[in-house]
């Protein structure tokens, strides 16, 4: 099995990420994002399963009125993220299927993952973005809302971490 290559220096990876973000701004006038892609997909599913529900919620409507939600810019971008991450991991020998018993996370961890995801989904919807779109891209443009979101995020994280210490030994 190929040796596991160690991770890159975070500062260097961060600078590379910043350059990608800069290129994105220069090419499209907007930053990147992630939660919007998820929202697009959810809206698409709701729209397909129950169009009435989609029409009654301004939230879903907003993701359905600019063309197909399945080919939204952010959705294509997030597919790119999956491909890029997979390629990088594969080349570095870091793909590790955690379905195997030895490396599978505990049921508690998985439950926490889903719960955490639900909370993040709610938070991202309210804030109109997440760490990638709002905090990173908005933060680089010095948006007040982005910085408020970021400070609140880290505050909540640091304050609640001691309470769930058992989850992350």
């Amino acid at each position, binding site marked *: 099995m190929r040796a596991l290559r160690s991770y890159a220096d975070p500062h260097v990876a961060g600078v590379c990420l910043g350059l990608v973000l800069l290129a994105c701004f220069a090419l499209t006038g907007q930053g990147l994002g992630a939660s919007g892609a998820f929202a697009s997909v959810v809206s698409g599913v709701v729209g397909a399963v129950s169009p009435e529900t989609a029409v009654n919620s301004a939230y879903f409507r907003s993701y359905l009125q600019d063309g197909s939600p399945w080919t939204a810019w952010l959705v294509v971008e997030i597919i790119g993220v999956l491909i890029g991450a997979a390629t990088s991991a594969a080349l570095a020998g870091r793909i590790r299927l955690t379905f195997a018993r030895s490396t599978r996370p505990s049921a508690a961890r998985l439950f926490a993952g889903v719960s955490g995801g639900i909370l993040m989904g709610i938070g991202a919807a309210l804030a109109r973005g997440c760490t990638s779109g709002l905090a990173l891209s908005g933060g680089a443009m*010095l948006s007040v809302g982005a910085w408020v979101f970021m400070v609140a995020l880290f505050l909540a994280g640091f304050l609640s971490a001691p309470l769930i210490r058992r989850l992350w030994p």
Partner: protein
Amino acid sequence: MNNLLIAGGVGVAFGWALECAGLGDPPKLAGQFYLRDFTVLKVMLSAMLTAMLGVFWGGRLGMFNPAAFYVPETHLLPQLVGGLVFGLGFVLSGLCPGTSCVALASGRIEGAATMLGLFTGLLLVGLAFPSIEPFYRSTPQGPLTLQRLTGLPFGVMVALVTVVALSVLAWISKREAAR
């Protein structure tokens, strides 16, 4: 079509950089909140600093016009509350929306768990939207920036943010060296 090609390209580079930094690994990300692993802050601050300086100087050198770049709209209350809720979720799952994709792409089932939760959370907000819409639309400030808020020139704001961000990064380095 061109636009979508750019989207794909940006996404691939984005995912690649995140994976290289190790941000597809939940214990690593959660470690930030136990002050054990500062990768999250290092990556975020470095990226933000790079992009911010790039936007400013690119604009000054006439390469593009930053005034035309998208600044998210500020809605103070929903973004504050959203941030708090998001932070709690972040510590629980050890991943965020973008990094959950990186985790999944590395074969981690935790990524799938977080994504499932994300879809659910967004669905809940969408379904409850008619009731929470007034809160969602409250305290709008438009595309407010730090420089417009404080009345300081763009360049001065950039300098301030640079100094603060670099100070935090330096503090982190010092703390890690002391271990």
